[in-house]
C-alpha cells in the first residue's frame, strides 16, 4: 500500500507536537499583558521575526499544494511560487514601514490611525475575520489530508487534533509562543527542503516502466486503425467488455479475464497516424452497495491485496541512457527537457445505476512540455486565442501580487518587532528565506514527479511521499514539519481573528470598555470560538481543492484591504467614508464574484460551468481596481469643508 503507517513517523510526529506545545507553555509564562499577548511586547528579535514570517507564510498550500501541482502538471505550480514571492515586494517596499508606524495591534488600527472612526474598525475587523476564516479552511483540510495516511486516522480526527492543539497553543501564550513555533518550523522547513533537493540532484533520473512498488505498466500494440486489440497475446484469455453508458464516448477499453472475471481498463491512444496503442490504466470504483474496487478487485488494506500502484516515472532519457547518475542544478532541467515523463490524467464516469468509476490513465509527456507554462487547467487559458481566458490568468497573478501585503496574519507580524527598521530587516530575512524555499519547490515538485512514489488520487501528498522514496526518517521529519506548518499557520490566523474581534469589534466598534486582563480573556474566548468554527469548516470542506481555497482568500484580502491601505498611505484626500466604502465594496464584490464563478459552480454547487454569471473565475483584475475606484469616488464626494475651500 502507498500509505503504510510508519512507526518512526508516528514517534517523530508526537515528539514534534510535544516540543512545540512545551515551548509555547514555557514562553507563555512571560506574556501577561495584552501587549504581550498580541504583539509579544514588540520585543521579538528581527531575525527571528523574519524566519517566523517564512513560517507564517509557507503554509500547507505553499509546501504541499505547490509541490503537488508541479508533480502532477509540471511548471505551472511554480507560477504560484513566483506570484506568492512577488507579493512580498509590495509588502516590503510599500507597506512594511508605514504599517509599523501607524498601528498598535491590528491592521484596523493602522487604517484608523488618522480618523478614530468606529465604522472603519467595524469594516476592517469584519474583513480581517472573513479573510482569516477563508484562509483557515484550506489549512484545516490540509491537516486532515496529512494525518490520514501518516497516522491512519480518519480525516475528521486529523482536523480535530490540529484544532485542539492550536487552541491550546494560542490560549496558553499568544504571540510570543506563536512566533517561536513559526521560527522553529520555518527554519526546519527550509533546511529539510534543501536536504531533499540535494538528494534529488544526487539521485538523478532513471528510466522505469512503473512506480517504486516494482509494478510495470504495460503498453500494448501498436496495431493499425480498424484492427482488433483482442488478438494481442497479452490479452489472451480475456473478452472485450462492450462500451455502454458513460463508457461509450471515451478512449477507454475494458477487458474481462475469462478465468477470474476481473475487468482491466486501458486507454487507447494514437501514437502515429493510423497506429494505435493501448496503455494500462488504473481504476477506482465505488459500487452502490458501498464497496470500493481497485483495478476490478475489492480494495485491500494489507500488503499484497489490491490497491492503486504508486506512479511517476521517466520513460526516455536523452541519448537513450537508462540512468543519469548525479546531476547538476541546471543539468537537472536540461536533462528533463529532453526526456519523456509519464503524467497521469483522470476521468470520472457515473453508470446509470449510480456506480462511480474514476479512471486514472497514463499521459506520456515530453519533458519540454512539462517544463513550460500552461499545462494545468487553471493556466491553460494562456494558450487560448480568447482574451477572456488570458484575463483569468492575469487576474490570478495580480491577486497573488497584491494579496500577500493584505493578509491580516502577515500584517500583525509587523507589530512584534520594536521599530520600523526592525520591521524592514525582518521582511528582508523573510524574503530571502521564502525565496530560497520557492526555488527548491521546483526541484522537489519535479523530483516527486519522477520518484515513482506518487499517489494518483492525491496531489497534496507529493512532497511527503517523495521524502519517503528517499528514506523513512526523512519522510517522518518532512511529515512532522508539514503538520507543524499547518499548526503554525492556523495559530497565526486564529490570533489575527482574536485581535480583530477584541480590538476592532468589541472595544472600538461596540464601545465596550475592557481592561488589560479582560482584553486577553476576550481574545482567548474568541480563539476557542474561531478554532471550533475552523474545525467544523475543515470537516465540511473536506473534498475541496486546497489551492483553490487559498486563491479565494488572496483575492478577497487584496480586494478588501489593499486599496484602503495604499490610498491611506499615499493620498492625502482619503476620507473615513472612502475607506469604509472601499473595504466593504472590495470584500463583497470579490466574494460575490467568486460565488458566481464557473469554478465555484462546477466544484461547489455541482452545476455546469456555462451557468456561471461572471465571465472568468478569478476576481482580482476587476475587484481590486473597483476597490481603488470606490475609495477615490467616495472620498471626493465626502471631502471635509476646509479642504474643499
Amino acid at each position, binding site marked *: 500500500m502507498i500509505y503504510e503507517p510508519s512507526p518512526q513517523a508516528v514517534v517523530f510526529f508526537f515528539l514534534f507536537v510535544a516540543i512545540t506545545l512545551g515551548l509555547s507553555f514555557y514562553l507563555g509564562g512571560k506574556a501577561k499583558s495584552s501587549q504581550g499577548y498580541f504583539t509579544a511586547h514588540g520585543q521579538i528579535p528581527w531575525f527571528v521575526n523574519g524566519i517566523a514570517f517564512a513560517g507564517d507564510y509557507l503554509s500547507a498550500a505553499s509546501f504541499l499544494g505547490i509541490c503537488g501541482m508541479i508533480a502532477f502538471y509540471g*511548471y505551472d505550480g*511554480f*507560477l504560484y*511560487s*513566483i506570484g506568492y*514571492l*512577488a507579493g*512580498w*515586494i*509590495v509588502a*516590503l*517596499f*510599500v507597506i512594511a*514601514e*508605514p504599517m509599523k*508606524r501607524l498601528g498598535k495591534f491590528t491592521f484596523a488600527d493602522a487604517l484608523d490611525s488618522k480618523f478614530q472612526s468606529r465604522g472603519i474598525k467595524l469594516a476592517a475587523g469584519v474583513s480581517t475575520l472573513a479573510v482569516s476564516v477563508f484562509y483557515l479552511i484550506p489549512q484545516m483540510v490540509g491537516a486532515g489530508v496529512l494525518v490520514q495516511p501518516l497516522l491512519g486516522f480518519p480525516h475528521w480526527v486529523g482536523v480535530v487534533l490540529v484544532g485542539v492543539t492550536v487552541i491550546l497553543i494560542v490560549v496558553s501564550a499568544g504571540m510570543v509562543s506563536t512566533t517561536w513555533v513559526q521560527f522553529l518550523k520555518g527554519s526546519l522547513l527550509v533546511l529539510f527542503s534543501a536536504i531533499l533537493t540535494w538528494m534529488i540532484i544526487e539521485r538523478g533520473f532513471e528510466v522505469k516502466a512503473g512506480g517504486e512498488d516494482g509494478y510495470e505498466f504495460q503498453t500494448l500494440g501498436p496495431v493499425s486503425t480498424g484492427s482488433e486489440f483482442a488478438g494481442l497475446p497479452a490479452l489472451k484469455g480475456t473478452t472485450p467488455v462492450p462500451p455502454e453508458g458513460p463508457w461509450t464516448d471515451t478512449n477507454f477499453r475494458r477487458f474481462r479475464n475469462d478465468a477470474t472475471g476481473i475487468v482491466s481498463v486501458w486507454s487507447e491512444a494514437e501514437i502515429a497516424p493510423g497506429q494505435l496503442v493501448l496503455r494500462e490504466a488504473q481504476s477506482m470504483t465505488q459500487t452502490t452497495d458501498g464497496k470500493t474496487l481497485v483495478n476490478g478487485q475489492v480494495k485491500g488494506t494489507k500488503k499484497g491485496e489490491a490497491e492503486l500502484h504508486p506512479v511517476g516515472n521517466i520513460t526516455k532519457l536523452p541519448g537513450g541512457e537508462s540512468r543519469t547518475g548525479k546531476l547538476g542544478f*541546471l*543539468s537537472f*532541467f*536540461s536533462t528533463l*527537457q*529532453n526526456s519523456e515523463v509519464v503524467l497521469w490524467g483522470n476521468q470520472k464516469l457515473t453508470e446509470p445505476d449510480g456506480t462511480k468509476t474514476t479512471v486514472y490513465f497514463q499521459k506520456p509527456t515530453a519533458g*519540454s512540455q512539462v*517544463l*513550460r*507554462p*500552461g499545462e494545468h487547467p487553471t493556466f491553460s487559458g*494562456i*494558450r487560448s486565442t480568447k482574451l477572456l481566458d*488570458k484575463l483569468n*490568468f*492575469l487576474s490570478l*497573478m495580480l491577486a497573488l*501580487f497584491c494579496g500577500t501585503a493584505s493578509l491580516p496574519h502577515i500584517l500583525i507580524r509587523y507589530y512584534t518587532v*520594536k*521599530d*520600523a*527598521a526592525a520591521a*524592514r*530587516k525582518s*521582511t*528582508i530575512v523573510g*524574503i*530571502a528565506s521564502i*525565496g*530560497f524555499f*520557492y*526555488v527548491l519547490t*521546483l526541484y522537489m515538485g519535479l523530483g516527486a514527479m519522477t520518484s515513482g512514489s506518487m499517489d494518483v488520487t492525491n496531489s497534496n501528498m507529493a512532497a511527503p511521499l517523495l521524502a519517503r522514496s528517499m528514506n523513512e526518517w526523512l519522510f517522518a521529519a518532512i511529515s512532522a514539519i508539514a503538520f507543524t506548518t499547518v499548526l503554525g499557520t492556523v495559530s497565526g490566523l486564529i490570533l489575527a481573528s482574536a485581535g480583530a474581534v477584541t480590538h476592532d469589534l468589541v472595544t472600538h466598534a461596540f464601545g465596550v470598555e475592557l481592561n488589560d486582563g479582560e482584553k486577553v480573556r476576550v481574545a482567548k474566548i474568541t480563539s476557542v470560538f474561531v478554532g471550533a468554527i475552523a474545525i467544523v469548516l475543515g470537516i465540511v470542506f473536506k473534498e475541496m481543492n486546497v489551492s483553490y481555497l487559498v486563491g479565494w482568500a488572496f483575492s478577497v484580502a487584496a480586494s478588501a484591504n489593499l486599496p484602503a491601505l495604499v490610498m491611506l498611505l499615499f493620498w492625502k484626500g482619503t476620507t473615513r467614508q472612502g475607506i469604509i466604502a472601499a473595504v466593504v465594496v472590495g470584500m463583497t464584490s470579490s466574494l460575490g464574484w467568486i460565488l458566481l464563478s464557473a469554478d465555484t459552480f462546477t466544484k461547489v454547487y455541482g452545476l455546469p460551468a456555462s451557468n456561471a454569471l461572471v465571465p472568468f473565475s478569478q476576481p482580482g483584475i476587476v475587484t481590486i481596481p473597483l476597490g481603488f475606484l470606490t475609495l477615490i469616488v467616495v472620498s471626493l464626494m465626502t471631502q471635509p469643508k476646509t479642504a474643499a475651500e
Partner: protein
Amino acid sequence: MRQRNARIGMVLFCVYLLLYGGFVFLNAFAPETMEVLPFAGVNLAILYGFGLIIAAVLLALIYGWMCKPDDEDVVRNEVEK
C-alpha cells in the same frame, strides 16, 4: 529620512513591477517564447522564474542597505534607553 526611505522603496518597487509585469505578459500573450532555450539547455520559463526570485532578494538587500534608520525610531530608542 522617512521620505527618503519611501522614495527608494518606490523606485525599487517600480523596477520589480517591470520585471514581474514582463514575465506575466510574456506568459499571457506570447507563451511560446517561454519555451526557447537561451542558456545551458534550460528554458526561459525556468530562467526568468528563478531570475524573478533572485531579483526580489537582491532588491530587498539593496533596500535594506540604502535605507537609513528612521528619525522617529532613533529618538524613541534613545528615550527607552
